[in-house]
């Protein structure tokens, strides 16, 4: 039985980015992001010193005993960076999780519900999208004091809109697919369609968005901490970099390493997200 067919995907190269070692990049992303994540998880065992204790001379350049040097008080920077990973990842993951949990259901409901439900949910989404998250976070910190919990809440509250919109547009296009119509025609209920047909098709996309959201949140959290608005009880990369600002000319390492740690984590997350997204696009 020969079954030739009109394959529309035959010559369509869906991704616009350079061709090249694609899998390699996704893997590189996993390695980069995974490394800093492991630092965060294993902080108590990995960090050679207590990052809050004075363990060496002040402002010592990187050496064999202090890989990333010491700060003005003689604290070990490498230990600080290790513990900072924990904060960055915690805030990033918690916020991204909330973002996905808020955004995906809204997106699915809007896309499947259509009509008035869609209008209403999208108006709401558009509104939350206009809120400048950085400034809202600062206002909340100004009124309620600094703390990781409120940073997570504010960032989640202003981030879910992106997920909701992308998921909604995906659902809208899925809804027009005959397989959803077919389910409807054969008597499936709205819930059956959402769970059986839509969800498995949306889940990979939500995962990608989740990964990208972790990176974005890390950046915002870092900027807030850099300005001294982070959680005072937690060590964070942004705060370390902020402390290094005053010693830019005398101790280059203080500003260089914490910022690099953030860049490495976010780069890794973006590479993974990009790679997965491309695979998604070429498979649908």
């Amino acid at each position, binding site marked *: *039985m*020969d*079954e*030739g*067919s*009109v*394959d*529309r995907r*035959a*010559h369509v*190269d869906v991704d616009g980015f350079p*061709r090249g070692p694609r899998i390699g990049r996704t893997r590189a992303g996993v390695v980069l992001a995974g490394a800093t994540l492991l630092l965060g998880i294993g902080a108590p065992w990995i960090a050679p010193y207590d990052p809050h204790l004075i363990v060496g001379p002040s402002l010592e350049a990187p050496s064999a005993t202090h890989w990333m040097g010491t700060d003005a008080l003689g604290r070990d920077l490498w230990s600080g960076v290790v513990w900072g990973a924990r904060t960055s990842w915690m805030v990033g993951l918690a916020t991204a999780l909330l973002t996905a949990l808020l955004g995906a259901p809204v997106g699915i409901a809007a896309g499947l519900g259509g009509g008035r439900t869609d209008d209403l949910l999208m108006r709401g989404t558009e509104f939350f999208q206009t809120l400048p998250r950085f400034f809202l976070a600062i206002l909340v910190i100004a009124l309620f004091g600094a703390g990781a919990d409120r940073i997570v809440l504010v960032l989640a509250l202003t981030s879910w809109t992106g997920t909701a919109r992308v998921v909604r547009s995906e659902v809208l296009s899925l809804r027009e*697919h*005959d*397989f959803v*119509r*077919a*389910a*409807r*025609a*054969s*008597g*499936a209920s709205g819930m*059956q369609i959402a769970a*059986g*047909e839509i969800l*498995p*098709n949306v889940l990979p996309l939500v995962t990608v968005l989740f990964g990208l959201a972790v990176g974005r949140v890390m950046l915002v959290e870092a900027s807030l901490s850099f300005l001294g608005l982070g959680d005072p009880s937690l060590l964070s990369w942004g705060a370390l970099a902020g402390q290094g600002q005053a010693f830019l000319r005398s101790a280059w390492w203080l500003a260089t390493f914490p910022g690099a740690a953030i860049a490495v984590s976010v780069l890794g997350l973006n590479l993974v997200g990009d790679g997965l997204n491309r695979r998604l696009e070429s*498979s*649908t």
Partner: protein
Amino acid sequence: MTDSASPLLRLEDLSVAFDGRPAAVDGVSLRIDPGEVVGLVGRSGSGKTLTALSILGLLPRGAKITGGSIRYRGSELVGADDGTLRGIRGAEIGLVFQDPLSALHPALPVEHQVVEGLAWTQGRSPKRARTEARSLLDRVHAPDPETWGPRLPHEWSGGMRQRALLAMAMARDPALLIVDEPTTALDVTLQAQILSDLEELRSRRDLSILLITHDLGVVAELAHRVVVMDRGRIVETAEIEEIFDSPRAGATRFLLEGRLPASGASGDVADAGGPTRNAGGGTTPAAPLLDVRELTVRIGDVPVVESVDLRLPRGGTLALVGESGCGKSTIARALVGLEDGASGHVLLGGHDVLAAPPQRLRSIRRSIQLVWQDPFASLNPRRRIGWAVERPLRIHRLAGGVEARRRALELLDRVRLPRSYARRYPHELSGGERQRVAIARALSVEPDLLILDEPFSALDAALRRGLLKLLGELREDLGFACLLVSHDLSLVRAAAERVAVVYLGRIVEEGRIGAVFSSPRHPYTAALLSAVPVDHPRDRGKRRRIILEGDVPSPASRPSGCEFRTRCHKTRPECSTRLPPLDAPGPTSDPHSFRCFFPVQGR
């Protein structure tokens, strides 16, 4: 094969490959002489389009010419610099793309796109260019270029877009026109228009045409010589009659066998209905399975389907035909309650689908199943085949767990797919296999009525026959009734017992296939039938072809009186005063009814 001294275009041993993969075009040689029409045929994926694109140096990203030569009027095009190629493109060789919508820039006025090549290369003034554009559009019979020229492509209809592409390719008066599947996306009426346009262009300008298609019917209409490709290689080259009379290559025979006869006796599949077939004769007064009365569907305020009456006996087959957009698919969707704006009565086994409360509707939906047009879209890409086939059983709580799995495997047997396919995902299957899965899924709940909405239009013509045969056998075994929605008249002839012709959401003619196809009474039906491509090149020009001008009017502004009169070649003043009723002349047990005051005289 003519052996004139200087071919217009000559490909020798041309190979094209996507990087890192085996050659997609493998050692292709062919020649086109001045004034000659060469058909390049093969199923999709055989490398036809790549061959054509490589001639103009327009291969998609990643594809490269890996060997061979392309000579146009003696000069080599492989490896030629951009300037040389640009001198050829448009000016010497015009290219008409397969999908007219994606080949037009969505945000530039059509007339601008038609003359863009002119204005740029020949330094004409914008105003002259516009005049030129409109005369070009006029020449390919695009209606009213003054009005439509300045509009954007998405406002144009499919047939008009195809003509715009043709005008675009002809703008600089090339000597060779490469036409890629020019009519695949079009209705027969439009196909006939475009083919006659092409023939007209060719004869008037001594144009050479390279006609790329998977449809031998199109080739039979136009080509002098045929080159058959399969898996990147040329498997047969012959004069047109030879191809039809004594095909040599297996691939050629495959393409020929897939064709359904456009005339002659009705096909094998309806006959395969065997015993149940007699029930379709309409002689039995027993209550029909499906009884549609006064079905009207409004989308917004616009009635796209207007008081349609249909009757389908148990085990019978009825086809709805008409041009795309005529409302035939809307009727099909209304039957299963998927159209919100439907009113009237749809009685299935005595129960009204449209009036049914939700719980009842669920059970009614069990007895009507649909097979969708596009097998690429009708299966959930992230669910296994087994899941898809079991799905209706689970929805209707007819079976679960092991029992559902067992029934799914049996169904795969029935549609002749290996049981191992249950664990595969749709993207691992070909289009034809997916359509078999869709049929298995529909049959899982043992429906009384199967609705097939353009079931094979997304598949290569060659696959139709096999699927049709399968359907016929399944029908014989299971005894379900079929409602076939299609624009493909050869398919309808082969598959159905009765046919209803739909125009502007209204049925204009209804009767037994044999009666309607052999002596159509409504001028629209006659025009549709005359537009079907000939079966064999020797019949070329023998049939009197009624070319329908223009497009179907919008259902939002229906013509007064007979709604077909604006495109009818027999229209008279009386036609605009009153809508002809759908009547059968005289009492008969086997009615053949039509909606026309001045019907075509039967033979």
